[in-house]
């Protein structure tokens, strides 16, 4: 299949990286982070930033191999069987259902408490199917526009939160040994950074001016981790660690305390819209990835996703339990598969 006419700009690619890494954090990410590392959450984020470099190097290695092909074709040249493709598709599908339930249950519980969840899922799914029909170029353009809006909203949130700040809530640092920050950083890494592998579906040749692409991806992920640190610091300082552990969505509750200029103070519903934008792009990209990898139409993937919502995730407690147990496993499996692919690539370099 010739994707040569689907050219994507460098800035659009980086905006997609931004959306992918940013989106799971405000929901599952910060909940699990605080649960496992308590007060040392900021150190966890530092450690996971350093570990993120490993994932980035694996990504770069696979991305640079045969830049004219996308992941589907690269796997066709490397492996004879289809097991790798199917297992990758399945693992990302599990992540897709988790993310989709996360954003939809947030919308239901905060905004529209009496609408059945099935309606909200269907409307979001219709939008995802629509954008998948248009192709990756449109996804990247929409992602650039929405990324710009998201950054503006995040900046408003960060600069408005300083009034109820109490920095001493972050102490004591490293009260126990190093174990809890490490555990927290493991969770952050597996829940947040794993989605960058979705972008392997784009061949490297399709990006305009791709000379310094790696540098820009690195800068984008650094910016995202900085935002993570800011959000976590605010959450723990404003609410106190004990209260922050109690909520499902602690970042959202922190936003309720924002006052700007003393009179604009009820804007948390407006600012959280940036999370909906990021989730939309992430879900669209994952559906695009799965459909390109296995040639299944997006509408079938979405139907299975909706079925999951009805049957398996029946209430939010069960969802949290399953997520904490199974999502890190699936993410670790994805990393292992990517390692297998890179080893195969190295072998193929040697035989050439």
């Amino acid at each position, binding site marked *: 299949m010739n994707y040569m006419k689907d050219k994507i700009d460098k800035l659009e690619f980086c905006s997609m990286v931004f959306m992918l890494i940013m989106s799971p954090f405000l929901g599952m990410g910060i909940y699990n982070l605080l649960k496992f590392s308590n007060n040392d959450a900021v150190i966890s984020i530092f450690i996971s930033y350093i570990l993120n470099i490993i994932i980035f190097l694996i990504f770069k290695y696979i991305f640079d191999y045969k830049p004219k092909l996308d992941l589907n074709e690269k796997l066709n040249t490397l492996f004879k069987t289809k097991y790798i493709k199917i297992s990758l598709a399945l693992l990302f599908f599990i992540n897709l259902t988790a993310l989709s339930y996360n954003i939809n249950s947030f919308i239901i519980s905060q905004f529209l408490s*009496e609408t059945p969840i099935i*309606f909200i899922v269907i409307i979001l799914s219709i939008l995802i199917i629509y954008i998948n029909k248009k192709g990756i170029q449109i996804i990247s353009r929409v992602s650039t526009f929405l990324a710009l809006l998201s950054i503006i909203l995040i900046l408003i949130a960060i600069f408005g939160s300083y009034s109820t700040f109490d920095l001493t809530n972050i102490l004591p640092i490293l009260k126990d040994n190093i174990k809890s920050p490490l555990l927290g950083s493991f969770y952050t890494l597996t829940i947040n950074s794993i989605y960058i592998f979705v972008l392997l579906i784009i061949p490297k040749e399709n990006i305009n001016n791709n000379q310094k692409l790696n540098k820009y991806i690195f800068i984008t992920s650094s910016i995202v981790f900085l935002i993570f640190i800011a959000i976590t610091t605010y959450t723990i300082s404003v609410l*106190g660690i004990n209260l922050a552990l*109690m909520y499902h969505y602690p970042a959202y509750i922190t936003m309720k305390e924002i006052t700007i200029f003393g009179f604009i103070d009820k804007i948390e519903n407006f600012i959280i819209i940036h999370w909906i934008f990021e989730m939309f792009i992430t879900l669209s990209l994952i559906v695009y990835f799965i459909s390109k990898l296995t040639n299944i139409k997006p509408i079938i993937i979405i139907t299975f996703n909706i079925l999951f919502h009805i049957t398996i995730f029946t209430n939010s407690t069960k969802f949290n339990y399953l997520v904490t147990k199974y999502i890190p496993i699936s993410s670790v499996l994805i990393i292992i598969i990517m390692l297998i692919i890179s080893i195969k690539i190295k072998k193929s370099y040697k035989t050439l």
Partner: protein
Amino acid sequence: MKIKLIILIPLLLFLTGCYNYRELNDLGITTAIYIKKDKLYELTIEVLKTEKEDSKEGDMPKPVIFKSSGTTIQEALRNTILKSPKRLYAHHMQVLIIDENLAKEGISDILDLFFRDPESRKQFFVVVSKDDEILETDSNLTDTNSKSMYERIIANKNFLGNIVPVTFTNLLSKYLNPNIEIVLPSINIKDDEIVFNESAIFKKDKLIGYISNEDTIYLNLICGKIKDTVITSKDKNYITVEINEAKTKYKVEDNKIEIKLSLIGNISEINEQIDLINPNSINHIENIFEEEIKNNINNLIRKISDYDTDIFGFQDIFYKYNKNFNGLKNITINISVNMKLKYKGNGAYELYER
């Protein structure tokens, strides 16, 4: 295929049925709730009236008071439907008033409803009331009772420091933190008006006593939460000083804490005969204040350690700096106050008969 989609999508949108559609007139905008408990919870709820009255325009309408009861607070809130058709909407609530007797038994049962409800913001203030019928008092201003209380607390926070302003988030945060105890302002009715007059101190979640308004200023000074206040010294005649900036610094070692207060202020009113032109007299006034504040704070700490609650949060500070804490009675507290008086207003001298 396209035609099917074009028909299907609008149908779907309309099928979502507007489940959450709430007209403005169906809301009962609650601004204050007063909780009391006999055997059942008895609630008094103040709701704003939104019907158009034919009386003069521009006047805030008088609020409506409802009473209802139930075994839990949520039941009692829903039972108000027996008296009025509007479903209560607690997002704009400004004040939550807890009865004194209920506070003596423990406030932990009240907290869960507002913590869990997604519709309520947690920015309302919580106060303890000594009298019943607190919401039925006639406010002679055009504001409702709750709004005047809310604005009084904010004004007090900014200008007097007499009240410990506790929003619901702060209350939950302190309640969940095992190292700090709760202090709430308290109100009662005097001469048909609502006044704030003492602060209620808690141990765990039960009310155990009260401290006076003046002591609350010193409590706020220790915790570093004063923005602007006025302190009077009672040495000979009265000198009143307006404090613009109050900073608190802690230095923590094992079983010992040093609190350094640095206050910057102006002389507002002086009725003593001190030679104000002389720089030494300014130092003298500063020393008077420093001594007095230090003594008052030490008295307060002694009083509170009799109650055996740690409302200052010393245990929390020791925990944060990783040092040992053996109880409020067993640590040594050193307080040093440093006051700087920069200006004395317009007058270079003080007024006295020559």
